């Protein structure tokens, strides 16, 4: 079994919100826990998918594990080194080993630079290679992301969405990273281009031995590329396990809801795949939720189909018993009293 490259323990990230005169004067504001005690690990050369609705904290996790934002508490261990409290200077040599692909296609592409210079800059951030080596490396990068050499002279604005994505990936590969956090890498692209990029990312993983934290709301793609999937709800992981188990035998009601919401847009095979019976009944009675005031006890209870079916058991809304992740076999963990 390959070794662990990233280990996150009880990660927390609070954002404070200051609104109005009183909180300005007292310096106290509402605290919104964007990430609320999350633990997981990534093995070398594997892909872990992170799914959940917007606002659930997926992107915050991605940014925090790379120390692009500082965690409020918890521990992040990258390749055996605790990077939770590292200073900028200490982090700098590690930065090249862990990179991020942003959802925004234009992120990291200076609009005033030609593609050639964008790549050259990326190649010279951490080392000082000679001109010949740079030229060689650029050719290699172009080949890795299948981009035509003629595009080197273009400015980002002259590229299509798919080409921008390829340049963005080439830029990340320039520093030879080991861990890549891919935050919605395909959601800004057209369907026919999405498939190209998904294939490219999988190829790169195979050839370069990369490890991905794959953040996406596109469930079929996540299921396709990931070995393990973590499902997040309001800042917490509510279920985590092998991709096929999460997709086909979800234990947490929220996972079932998430996958069925994909299925009931369609009337195809996907519908038949959803085995969770409670999901169907849930659709009638689904309320809206509030990120800022999570329910006491289980935070999914207000929207939970199982909670209603079980006749609203007190344990679900008991503030003292928020369900914790527990192992239900084969490394599959679920945070639900009734899973």
């Amino acid at each position, binding site marked *: 079994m390959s070794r662990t490259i990233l280990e996150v323990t009880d990660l927390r990230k609070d954002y404070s919100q200051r609104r109005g005169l009183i909180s300005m004067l007292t310096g106290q504001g509402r605290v919104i826990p964007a990430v609320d005690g999350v633990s997981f690990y990534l093995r070398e050369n594997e892909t872990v998918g992170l799914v959940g609705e917007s606002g659930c904290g997926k992107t915050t996790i991605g940014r925090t594990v790379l120390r692009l934002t500082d965690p409020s508490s918890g521990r992040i261990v990258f390749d055996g080194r605790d990077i939770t409290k590292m200073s900028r200077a200490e982090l700098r040599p590690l930065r090249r080993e862990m990179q991020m692909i942003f959802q925004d296609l234009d992120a990291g592409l200076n609009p005033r630079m030609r593609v050639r210079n964008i790549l050259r800059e990326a190649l010279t951030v951490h080392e000082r290679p000679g001109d010949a080596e740079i030229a060689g490396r650029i050719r290699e990068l172009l080949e890795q992301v299948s981009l035509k050499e003629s595009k080197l002279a273009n400015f980002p604005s002259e590229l299509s969405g798919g080409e921008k994505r390829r340049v963005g990936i080439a830029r990340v590969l320039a520093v030879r990273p080991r861990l890549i956090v891919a935050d919605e890498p395909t959601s800004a692209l057209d369907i026919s281009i999405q498939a190209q990029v998904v294939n490219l990312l999988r190829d790169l993983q195979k050839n370069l031995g990369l490890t991905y934290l794959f953040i996406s709301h596109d469930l079929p793609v996540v299921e396709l590329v990931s070995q393990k999937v973590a499902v997040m709800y309001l800042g917490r992981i509510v279920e985590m396990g092998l991709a096929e188990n999460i997709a086909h035998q979800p234990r947490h009601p929220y996972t079932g809801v*998430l996958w069925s919401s994909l299925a*009931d847009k369609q009337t195809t095979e996907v519908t038949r795949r959803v085995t969770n019976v409670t999901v169907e009944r849930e659709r009638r009675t689904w*309320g809206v939720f509030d990120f800022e005031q999570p329910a006491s006890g289980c935070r999914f209870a207000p929207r939970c189909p199982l909670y209603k079916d079980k006749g609203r058991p007190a344990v679900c809304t008991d503030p003292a018993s928020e369900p914790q992740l527990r192992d239900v076999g084969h490394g599959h963990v679920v945070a639900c009293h009734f899973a």
Partner: protein
Amino acid sequence: MALDAGPLLAIDNLRTYFYSRAKRAFIRSVDGVSLGVAHGETLGIVGESGSGKSVTALSAAGLVTAGPGVISGRIDLHSNGTRRNLLEGLENYARFTEQDGRVMAVEKDERGWRKHSDTLMAGVRGKEIAMIFQNPRSALNPYSTIGKQLVETIRLHTNFKGEREAKERAIHWLERVRIDSPGLRFDNFPFGLSGGMCQRAMIAMALSAEPSLLIADEPTTGLDATIQSRIVDLLAQLKTETGITTLLISHDISVIQRLSDRIAVMYGGTVVETGRAAEVLAPQATARHPYTAALLASIPSAETIRRKSYLQAIEGEVLDTIEVPRGCRFYGRCNRVTDAIRENCAGIEPPLAEIAPGHKVRCWLYPAAGKA
């Protein structure tokens, strides 16, 4: 359903162009599109960005005013026993020169065009044709409550003219789009509502005018996955309840599949395939446009996921409709070109030919194309 009365909306050979200053060329966003939406049916237009699906809808609503814009075609609206061409007389304001069937230059009196278009659309846009858009929050007025905006629409477009009856009607519509406690939501501003709620309010507003045609342009895009399916549920329910004729535009095949009776697949400013939804998207369909087939294949299927195999991506880039090729617009990316038809594919644009009753495909693979 009075299908014999002819389609509610008939678009005939519509061309809507824009001009790119940087490239000094036309962007042929909609390039000869003909479509019909029958009374009571939902026509789903599916396509990627730049395929012209949204511009087709905007043209029908008379919302393309800048640049060359709508330069030719007919848009017939057949409702309440009358029939009108929404582009009637507009050709007097735009003149274009053609060469080999291609528009080379457009001369347009923009102001005159807009003025005349506004006269044509008076009493049509908002009343006969209502629209819902991708981003509900930007389509709603942020300075006015949901209720106020609804009441305004209702008093303007329906016979509920009194303040009180309009309010009752507004609450009735908020109920119909399944907004919880509509009486309270009535006084909410758009920023106080979630994205899904705003979309519901937007739908209520569009339907409250009791339009003949609803244009839904990417109604679920940008919403969360779980909210998306709720909005699709709502649209499906409203479709059964009101039987409203809908022109649905989406890049999301699953949304199109769930809601449409018929489908038009667009690529590079033209319709490449149209037919009954069940036929066009049937899993085992053999006769379909190579683009439709490739599009369906590029979505991970249960089989692909199980085997963890590669996705069948469509090579190349989406056509930018600036440099439109002479032959088939999909030729450069097509994987089904055979030697027998290659010459045709490269040189002559295939016609939209009927390969089965009601099922048309724009491709040289089908013998019908040669006869058309």
